[in-house]
C-alpha cells in the first residue's frame, strides 16, 4: 500500500466492447474515510468500472489504482487492504459456507484471515448455517456471506456492487446497517447502487454515471444544496396542481410516492401559488419544505430534464464523515 495514496483513483478509465463504449474516460477519487456512492441506472457502466478497479478486466484506456497500485501492473498485490464483490457474490455451491470462507482465507494467505472466519460469520449472522452447503443458501444469505468473505481480509477499503439487490426489506435494512457500522469503524466504502435512497442514506460523497460517463462527482451535501430548496405538495388534484405550478414558472415533477415536488420559487411565489390553488378549487392536504432530493437531481441528470441544476465543483474533497 502506498502511503498517502487515495484508496481509489480512476483516471481516464475507459472500456470498449467492439463499437460500444461501456466506460468513457471516468475520473474519480475516493478519499480515505469516504462512504462513496457510485450511482447510475442499470447498464450505466458501474460494474464494468468496478471490475476494472479490481483487476478483473483490462481497461481499454486509462488507469485504475487502489491505494496507488494498478492491478494491471501489480496483480494481486494491488488488492492488499481491499475487499468486496462485484455483482452478486459467488461461491462454490457444493462447499459449505464455512469451507468457502476457509478457501477465501487460504487464498488470502491463511493466518489472520483464518482466525477472522468465526467473527465474520457472527457479524453477518450466518454462524448457525455455516456448515450448510452454499447451494442451499438464499440470495440474501449469499450476499451476507459475500460480506463475511470480504471482512476476513480485514480491509481498509470495501467495494460493494449493489449489495442490497435482491434482498427483502429486512435484509436491505440489515445490510445498510452493516455498511453504516463498518463505515463508523473507519472503513472506506465504495458502494455502487441504482437506489438513490440507499446512497442518500449511507454516503457522504457520490458520483453519478450514465452511458459510461461521470455526470457528477462530489459531496452529497453540496449536491443537495445545489438542487435548491424544494417543497412537497399533496393536494386533492395533483395533475391540476402541477399544471398551475408550471403556469407560474415553478419547476415541478410528480415523484414516485405521488407527491408533487416543487423546486425553485421564493416564498412570495409559493404564497401566490397556494392562492391560485384555492381559486382553482384544489385543496391543499399537505405542503412541506425540505432540501433538494438526490432522486430529483439524479433524474435531471440522467434523463436530461431541461432545468439541470448548477453543478457544484466536481473536485474531490477531503474525507467528510457527514453521512455517518
Amino acid at each position, binding site marked *: 500500500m502506498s502511503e498517502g495514496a487515495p484508496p481509489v483513483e480512476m483516471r481516464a478509465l475507459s472500456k470498449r466492447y467492439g463499437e460500444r463504449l461501456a466506460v468513457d474516460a471516468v475520473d474519480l477519487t475516493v478519499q480515505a474515510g469516504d462512504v462513496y456512492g457510485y450511482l447510475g441506472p442499470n447498464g450505466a457502466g458501474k460494474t464494468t468500472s468496478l471490475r476494472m478497479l*479490481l483487476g478483473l478486466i483490462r481497461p481499454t484506456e486509462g488507469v485504475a489504482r487502489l491505494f496507488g497500485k494498478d492491478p494491471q501492473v501489480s496483480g494481486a498485490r494491488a488488492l492488499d487492504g481491499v475487499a468486496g464483490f462485484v455483482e452478486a457474490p459467488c461461491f462454490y455451491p457444493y462447499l459449505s459456507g464455512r469451507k468457502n470462507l476457509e478457501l477465501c482465507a487460504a487464498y488470502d494467505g491463511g493466518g489472520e484471515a483464518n482466525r477472522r472466519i468465526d467473527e465474520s460469520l457472527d457479524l453477518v449472522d450466518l454462524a448457525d448455517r455455516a456448515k450448510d452447503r452454499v447451494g442451499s443458501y438464499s440470495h440474501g444469505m449469499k450476499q451476507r456471506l459475500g460480506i463475511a468473505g470480504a471482512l476476513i481480509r480485514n480491509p481498509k477499503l470495501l467495494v460493494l456492487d449493489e449489495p442490497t439487490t435482491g434482498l427483502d426489506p429486512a435484509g436491505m435494512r440489515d445490510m445498510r446497517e452493516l455498511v453504516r457500522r463498518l463505515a463508523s469503524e473507519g472503513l472506506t466504502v465504495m458502494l455502487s447502487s441504482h437506489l438513490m435512497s440507499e446512497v442518500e442514506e449511507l454516503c457522504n460523497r457520490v458520483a453519478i454515471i450514465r452511458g459510461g460517463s461521470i455526470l457528477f462527482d462530489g459531496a452529497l451535501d453540496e449536491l443537495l444544496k445545489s438542487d435548491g430548496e424544494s417543497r412537497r405538495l399533496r393536494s386533492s388534484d395533483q395533475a391540476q396542481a402541477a399544471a398551475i405550478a408550471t403556469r407560474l414558472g415553478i419547476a415541478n415533477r410528480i415523484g414516485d410516492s405521488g407527491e408533487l415536488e416543487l423546486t425553485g420559487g421564493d416564498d412570495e411565489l409559493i404564497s401566490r401559488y397556494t392562492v391560485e390553488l384555492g381559486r382553482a378549487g384544489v385543496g391543499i392536504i399537505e405542503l412541506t419544505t425540505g432540501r433538494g432530493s438526490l432522486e430529483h437531481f439524479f433524474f435531471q441528470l440522467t434523463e436530461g430534464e431541461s432545468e439541470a441544476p448548477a453543478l457544484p465543483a466536481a473536485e474531490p474533497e477531503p474525507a467528510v464523515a457527514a453521512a455517518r
Partner: protein
Amino acid sequence: MTRPRVLTVYLWELRKLARQKRTYLGLGAALIVPILFVAALHFQNGSPNDVAFGRYVRESGLAVPLVLLLFGSIWLFPLITALVAGDIIAAEDHNGTLKTILTRSVDRGHVFAGKTLAAATYAALALSLTGVVAVVAGTLQSGFNPLTDLSGQPVSARRSLMLVAASFLVYLVPILAIACFGLCLSALTRNSAAAVVGTLMFALLMQLIGILPGLSGTQPYLLSTQLSAWQGFFRVPTDWLPIVRGLWVSAAYGLPALMIAYLTFLRRDVTGG
C-alpha cells in the same frame, strides 16, 4: 501479507474435486472397467486375441492391465481426463467464482498452476486406479504368472509387474497432453460441456487421422499413436524409439496447448457471475 503458494491452490483444487460428483464418475469408470473386464473373462470363453497381450489374459493376470491400456486409449482414458481438465477452469466461469478467487491475494498464474496440477493429478489417479484394480482382479482371475512379451520371450511375473508399472507411466504422458488440450479448451470456451466434448473429439480425431488412407505417414506423430508407445518395454531388446518419441510428440502437443491456456487465463477479462 503472506502470499498463497501454488501448493495452497493445488490442495484446495483437490478438495473441490473431492466434493464434486463428476470426479467420482471418472474414478468410478476407472475402477469398474477392469472389474467388468475380468468378470467377462470369468463368465465367458475366449480372449481378445486381436490386440497385443490379448491372447495371454487367461495365462497371466498381468496381461489384463496391458489389454485395458489398449482398449482404454480409444475413449475411456481421454474421456476421464477430459471430464476434469475440460471443466476445471470453465466451471469457475459457470459458478461465477473466478471473480471470487481472483479478488483475493493469489496471483492468476498460481491459480492456473494449481488447476493444471490438480487436473494432471486426477488423470494420474484414474490411470493408477485402473492399473491397480486390473492387476489385482487379473491376478485373482488368471494368477500372478510370467508374461510372454511381444518378442515371444517369457518374462518373470515380478519383472512383468515392473514393466506394467513403467507402461502406465509412459502411457500417462500422452494422457497429460490430452489434459493440456482440455485445459486449453476450458480456458478458451469458458464452457464445461464444450471443453469436455471438444477434448474427447480431439482424441478421437487423432485416431481417425491415423486410419485414413494416404495419411499413414502422419501416424508416428499423432498423439493417439503415443498411447501405444509403452509396448517398446515388451520387446527384446527394449525398443526405446517409440517411448522417446512418445515423450517429445506428447510435449509437442501438450506444451503449446498449455501455453495458450496459460496466456488466455492470465489476460482474460473476468466478466461472468
